[in-house]
């Protein structure tokens, strides 16, 4: 139920966006999210865009994954 997928906004018509997940297109309501533009990635959840994806944070997360934990080593 709380599954959401990142989808790319293709175009916007009023409060409805057409988004792509890979090559499949879906409609996403923008009633719960402001400032969405074509090219943005949004989290699509039960027909609604509920958050925008932050590309800088996404890259930072990948960088953190690769860190070596050194809590017990000096």
């Amino acid at each position, binding site marked *: 139920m709380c599954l959401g997928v990142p989808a790319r906004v293709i175009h916007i018509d009023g409060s409805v966006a057409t988004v792509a997940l890979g090559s499949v297109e879906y409609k996403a309501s923008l009633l719960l999210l402001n400032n969405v533009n074509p090219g943005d990635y949004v989290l699509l*959840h*039960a027909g609604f865009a509920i958050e925008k*994806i932050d590309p800088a944070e996404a890259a930072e997360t990948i960088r953190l994954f690769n860190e070596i934990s050194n809590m017990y080593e000096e």
Partner: protein
Amino acid sequence: MKPEGLRYIDEYRDSALVLHLSNQIRKVSKKPVNLMEVCGGHTMAIHKNGLTGFLPETINLLSGPGCPVCVSSQTFIDHAIALGNLPDMILTTYGDLLRVPGSLSSLEKEKAAGSDIRIVYSVLDALEIAKQNRKKQVVFIGIGFETTAPASAAAIKKAEMDGIRNFYLLSSHKVMPPALEALAAGDTKIDGFIAPGHVSAITGYGIYQKFAKVYKRGVVISGFEPADILQSILMLVKQIELSNYHVENEYKRIVKPGGNPKALAIMEEVFIPVDAEWRGLGIVPESGLAITEKFAAYDATRKFDVKIPESKPPRGCICGEILTGKSKPSDCRLFASVCNPLNPVGACMVSSEGACSVFYKYRA
């Protein structure tokens, strides 16, 4: 059948990364810990990807109450069934709910017996059905937490704006913090919470401070891909090893500190917190969302007076204990023998994110 690279998905599934994170966890984990994955979506992701195989024996994962279908009370299912029996009624709902056994029947059986019950992907589809069937009453059976509640609220507001007067919500929407508090204060031993990423996208971090500060539990908001989950476990293990409990956010690409203000505002306008019944937790204060006076005209509970049979919980089912991390599906005597996805005894075997159904599907 994956057409092209899926951005923000593929890179978080990288197998070398998963192995690396697994090694890091093995390196830092010394004490045995119980971590609760609150969200059923996490339970599903963990087992689908076999992530327990990447964890040392020190780490015990407990399933939590974050499965909307599972925690919906039997009375609620019975209420929905009773509504479906009214004349000129179309019931609409997310698919998962259909097969949950009520006291005497299920929505699926009622549908087969002639009730007009339709599965929708979005609550806005239900609104569209109302628009196309003005002579009928259309009820959307709303379940879910802070992720789906704003969607239901937005649909009610849209119904008002578009002058659709035959659309109603039967709300079993719930909010997470009171349930987590009931768990933290209860007798399940939980050292840390893998906090639900998409609920947090709406709520922000604030709701979790108490669990770190007052209850001394680790909290990490987590994404849903394999590397996200392992990284979150690593972060939790470090917090617990150092007894340094705080709220961390692994899922920064989605979750902002203040959440989604627009969704929160819509939710607050349409809903008011009320005491609600959770399977496994009983009545939890202020954990349910009822419709405010202002939108009373869209409230199926106020509009339709139906008789609901006294509920009889299924015998032998320990779904409630599983939802509170006290038991695992394999502890249930009915698991996989009497109870299976084709013949579910309890709600935890129905939902695709219910622990029993997940364990059944991915059992060794």
